[in-house]
């Protein structure tokens, strides 16, 4: 199973070269650009990891909800809300920031809390009123995104620049996540993300809370019969899930953009759904699937630049790759069942 998965991850990007060849582009140049945009150069490697960082946090958050069979489609809204809370906090100290060892932990903690509370709304609607969480989490995404668009044009807007772009003031240096690789933007966020994945693994598989989350996900009726408070477990799973997604938003704004932009809502939260599934809904699997995805984003943007192709073609290629991996994984399972 594992070998087949690895095979799928290696082979499927190569198929993209065929797509590009069909579009009349040189596959050799594309391959070279793909290589340099991922593991071939330090910059490519750093960019891959940077792109993977917020995805990893959101995907592992979703793993927790999905393991409980709570279909949280609201990662996007939760990460946006996390970033909004962070911005609010940073703007309070814009003129006179505290040292970074205070600013960063507090900001990240707030993003965690914000995301969790934002997910708590659909969680309560599900457990108290029985409203389907797929609908409510999607709707909450709109709430967060529209709030974001209003804030960057209103209360949070940087009024000092003439022309008034929809963006917040640039955050002070004290709030930037420390860089861990010179001459690159690779920051401490990746450490936070990997630690979060390992913690999530422990929570899911080594604590009573994780046990009850998995039990409720696999058989709510048996869980209830055995005295597990199903609704409370659903709420906890959803809170944890939203908290990790919110942290993803926090790491994104403090590590990459350093200001609140409308592009904070660029669809990462939806990509995270795919990443969590590609990681087999396992916290440690998500580490690999999100790095793969980060590399894909970084590599394809390198191909984009090298071949002068439109972004749509690179997005199309990413879609093809994902579908291929999913298909190969199905065949792998089929093989096992037959033997």
């Amino acid at each position, binding site marked *: 199973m594992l070998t087949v998965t690895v095979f799928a991850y290696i082979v499927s990007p190569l198929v993209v070269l065929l797509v590009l060849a069909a579009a009349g582009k040189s596959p050799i140049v594309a391959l070279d650009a793909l290589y340099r945009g991922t593991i071939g150069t330090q910059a490519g490697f750093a960019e891959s990891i940077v792109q993977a960082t917020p995805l990893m946090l959101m995907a592992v958050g979703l793993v927790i909800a999905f393991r409980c069979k709570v279909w949280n489609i609201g990662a996007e809204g939760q990460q946006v809300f996390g970033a909004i809370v962070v911005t609010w906090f940073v703007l309070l100290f814009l003129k006179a920031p505290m040292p970074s060892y205070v600013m960063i932990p507090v900001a990240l903690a707030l993003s965690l809390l914000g995301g969790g509370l934002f997910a708590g709304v659909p969680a309560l609607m599900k457990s108290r009123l029985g409203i389907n969480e797929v609908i409510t989490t999607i709707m909450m995404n709109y709430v967060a995104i529209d709030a974001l668009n209003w804030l960057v044009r209103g209360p949070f807007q940087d009024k000092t620049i003439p022309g008034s772009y929809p963006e917040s003031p640039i955050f002070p240096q004290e709030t930037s996540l420390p860089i861990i690789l010179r001459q690159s933007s690779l920051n401490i966020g990746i450490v936070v993300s990997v630690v979060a994945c390992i913690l999530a693994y*422990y929570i899911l598989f*080594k*604590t*009573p*809370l994780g*046990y*009850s989350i*998995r*039990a409720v996900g*696999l*058989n709510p*009726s*048996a*869980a*209830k*019969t*055995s*005295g*597990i*408070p199903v609704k409370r477990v659903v709420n906890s799973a959803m809170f944890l899930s939203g908290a990790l997604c919110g942290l993803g938003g926090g790491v994104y704004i403090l590590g990459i953009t350093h200001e609140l932009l409308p592009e904070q809502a660029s669809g990462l939260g939806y990509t995270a759904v795919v990443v969590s599934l590609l990681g087999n809904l396992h916290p440690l699997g998500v580490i690999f699937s999100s790095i793969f995805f980060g590399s894909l984003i970084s590599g394809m943007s390198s191909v984009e630049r090298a071949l002068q192709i439109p972004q749509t073609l690179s997005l199309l290629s990413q879609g093809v790759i994902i579908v291929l991996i999913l298909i190969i994984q199905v065949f792998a399972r089929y093989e096992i069942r037959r033997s």
Partner: protein
Amino acid sequence: MVDEISNEPPAVVMRGIVKRFPGGVVANDMVDFELHAGEIHGLLGENGAGKTTLMNILYGFYQPDTGSIEIFGKPATFRSPSDAIKHGIGMVHQHFKLVSDMTVVENIVLGLKSPKGILTDLPSAEARISSLAEKHGLHVDPRAQIWQLAVGELQRVEILKALYRDAKILILDEPTSVLAPTEVNDFFNSLRGLKQSGISIVLITHKLDEVMDVTDRVTVLRKGRKVATQPTQAVNKEKLAHMMVGEEIPPIADKTRTGAGEVVLEVRQLSVYDDRGLEAVKGVTFDVRKAEIIGIAGVSGNGQRELVQAIVGLRKPSSGSLKFGGKDITGKPPRRMIDLGLAYVPENRIEDASIADFRLDENMILKDFDKPPICNRLVDRIPTLLNDKEITCRGEEAVKQFSIMTTGISAKARSLSGGNLQKLILARELSGQPSLIVVSQPTRGLDIAATEFVRSILVQQRNRGAAVLLVDEDLSELITLSDRVAVMYKGQIVGLLEPGQFNLEEIGLLMTGAKKMSLAA
């Protein structure tokens, strides 16, 4: 026994039908069955007697291992229900198979070729359905959507669906179980009408009243074998009850009377609603005492399920009270009951008592995963990490003590056979010396060895001093194991039999509502 009334060949002749299921359960064992043309034939038996299996074979759902079928004198083999439908057989299952967002007409023509090729021809279908409905007194609005209809109407739709496919033989699987008592009479009148127009009907049931009321002949099955076929006029309810449950009471080892002790569970005037909002349990009162097994007898659907769910905390009673070990536990959640010492073995082992995709050892800790020694605690209060060693230990102990056949404790629960899964559940529930054990259908679907094992475990627990509440549709098992037997009928306890009063015929009559005891206390 074959009484030739006319020269017409019988509608159905089944000979020597044998059907075994994986796991060694013999559902039908050399069963002969004959349905005369134009009769209503009752097929009577307890749950698990093989009635539905036999009729599923006739409908092509299952293929028999051996045996032959003749339809109107011609040999027939059915590979699927569509073969059976071509031979004029229709079946209405206990659970309706209708599409809820479609109209009655759409449901009835579903799967049939339209006379207009790729286009539907609903108006002509509607006309034909209306005339069929008119003719047989099966009134239903053909344009109504399925979700708008009441259960009685759904049943009529199912019957119309069969008639629309020119069914000459109609199989009805416990059709009255979904009907309100007032609807039953109308329904029987429609059946009589269908009979008048030449349709032969098999009525699967375990209700004696219905057999007496509407059938011409009756065939009784018991444990997969045919007991007899009789004209209904030649039997009465007592005789049928006797045929249905048999008379042998197998002895059980090690059942010395210990003399029941103090009251453990006190049920007072308990009323409970079912999922449809109807009162399923109506003011039930009884005690379960230390070191006794009290058996609840009854035909399924008479409130036993709701009673059990109320006791274990899964369903809130609408009135009345429950006391466990002297503490009021009315409406308390399962957690509270478990903490007080409840063990619960539900009838649906896969759905309610185990997690198929958890390992065996993970299944073992379902009730106490957040308590020491399974879960470590910080300063005696805050739960921290699970103790993997302890969990492994728990799993291995269970496999050894209950001799569970498995490849190891890391196997998934779904890999276990029914008997071994039940052993796993018992191992979990009985650890920690529970003071009250609620068990529902403990041996349903198990093979003989596992059945014996489960029964002896229950007696052991009683001898240890546990109070046991046993709900069981297997009457002979119930009588063998129980110290006292309460009989439920339509949500009430209609009889409470003390030791020495056990009499299958008597219980059979109470169960079917043919008799009621006057209850003191």
